[in-house]
């Protein structure tokens, strides 16, 4: 049944894009910043996987960031890509990007052609695997918390992905 095999293969290839596997095997910016302006962490209670982010802000701009934690290929590569994509962005810019990525993962109507997400586009296939969407989102929820705090807002609590600010 070649058709089925084909459809199948396409599905999985959608999820496990080369970029994702590459970031999983060779994570970028793993570690923690001693001088972080803000550190936050979150975990996915349905699997126990976790992500920590530490962020250095200078002049309302993300000048450095690192991630830690452990988990599946999707959560870890998503975090790794996040660190690459965010470096050098302004706070506002970073929050906008985070919004786009989360929309891409959760919003059926999201149009990939509208924004240039670079490597992060590789995460778009995750949306087709509903139980893995949380994996893709984990790092971004943690980021949202951190950035909200940086912007002086009360960080929002997520029921399904408990996150918390660990220092600032």
């Amino acid at each position, binding site marked *: *049944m070649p*058709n*089925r*095999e084909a*459809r*199948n293969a396409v*599905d*999985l290839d959608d*999820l*496990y894009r080369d970029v994702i*596997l590459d970031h999983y*095997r060779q994570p970028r910016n793993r570690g923690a910043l001693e001088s972080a302006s803000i550190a936050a962490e979150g975990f996915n209670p*349905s*699997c*126990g*996987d976790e992500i920590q982010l530490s962020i250095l802000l200078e002049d309302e701009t993300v000048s450095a960031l690192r991630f830690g934690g*452990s*988990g*599946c*290929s*999707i959560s870890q590569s998503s975090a790794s890509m996040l660190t690459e994509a965010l470096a050098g962005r302004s706070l506002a810019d970073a929050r906008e990007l985070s919004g786009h990525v989360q929309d891409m993962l959760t919003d059926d109507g999201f149009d990939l052609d509208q924004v240039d997400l670079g490597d992060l586009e590789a995460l778009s296939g995750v949306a087709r*695997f509903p*139980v*893995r969407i949380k*994996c893709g989102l984990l790092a971004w929820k943690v980021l949202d918390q951190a950035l909200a705090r940086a912007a002086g807002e009360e960080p929002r609590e997520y029921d399904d992905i408990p996150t918390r600010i660990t220092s600032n």
Partner: protein
Amino acid sequence: MTTAALDIAAIRADFPILSREVRGRPLVYLDNAATTQKPRQVIEALTHYYSNTNANIHRGLHTLAEEATAAYEATRSKTAEFIGAAHPQEIVFTRNTTESLNLLAYTLGARLRPDDEIILSALEHHSNLVPWQLLAQRSGAKLRFIELTEDGEFDLDQARSLFNPRTRIVSVAHMSNVLGAIAPVADLVEFARAVDATVILDAAQSAPHMPVDVGALGVDFAAFSAHKMLGPTGVGVLWGKRELLADLDPFLGGGEMISVVNREESTWAALPHKFEAGTPNIADVIAFSAALDYLSAVGMQTVRDHDYALTAYAMERLSTIEGMEIYGPPGPERRGAVVAFNYADIHAHDIATILDSGGVAVRAGHHCAQPLMRVLQVPATARASFYLYNRESEIDALVDGLREAGSRFGLSV
């Protein structure tokens, strides 16, 4: 394989779901430790009940109520027989194993005093751990844990050392839902009797997979779930020795469990009704009869033999894959039909996703046994678990899927 005794093709034909496809592939259902599939006989029992005799039970004086009551109580008798209980009154229907264990934690627990001790093990399902934690918080009692050997079995010497005159309760999984390990019940009963402690068996995995005779085991209480043994969701069983159950105060108050109700206080119905407050899950209890009939017709020893053969085959095939780590006792003799594993550094959830894309359903995660994951020093495992409708070719499909996972993650397969 000893499946000669089982006509698997005929059995599979009884399970409508087994002919469905998943992502374009035939379903290979290897998540039986979570819940099993249901034969047509059980599904039809539900349809028949709702189409012919549906009524509230016990207090009715009309024909439907009479028929429904008789069918409900007949399941109770059948359940008693199935596990070798001395009397149908010893069977209380709950929602699931979890509720059965909580019922005990609340009722037995009401008698505990600070510094009384409760013995559990390192491999317990959260359902046989958290109720006792909550009780410990309420009562000041202390939890003690039986540790595991390298092979994932109870360390009997260490276990023995835990028992002392303050030990009130020992509650363990008869069969682990992760390691498959079968508990040394006779030893634990011996230790417990010496200090007059109550022995509770979490039989959620054992009752479905091997002959269980509570009388012969010598324990005091046992808990299991219909949904893990071909029955419907929403039915749990609590078995307890009659004099012990009779001695407990009620757990939930309400309709059916009372005798005389005054405004300020009430007296309780006889066993087992004292513990069945409100309208029970009548239809599902009645349909559970069909599941027990099915298992009895096959024979629980035959189920166990089939499980054994599949587990042996799975362990053998998995161990040919480089980087495969299998948890629990090394051979299938002392374990049930559960094989938990990790494959190199591929996360268990990635394994589950890749297997699913080939139609193979396994579970990945902590399997409601987080403390055990810490003992194993892994965040999670994948787990394949089998039942009487599974066959070797499905284990082959599992192995094929694992090879695909390996090659996707760049392992040499």
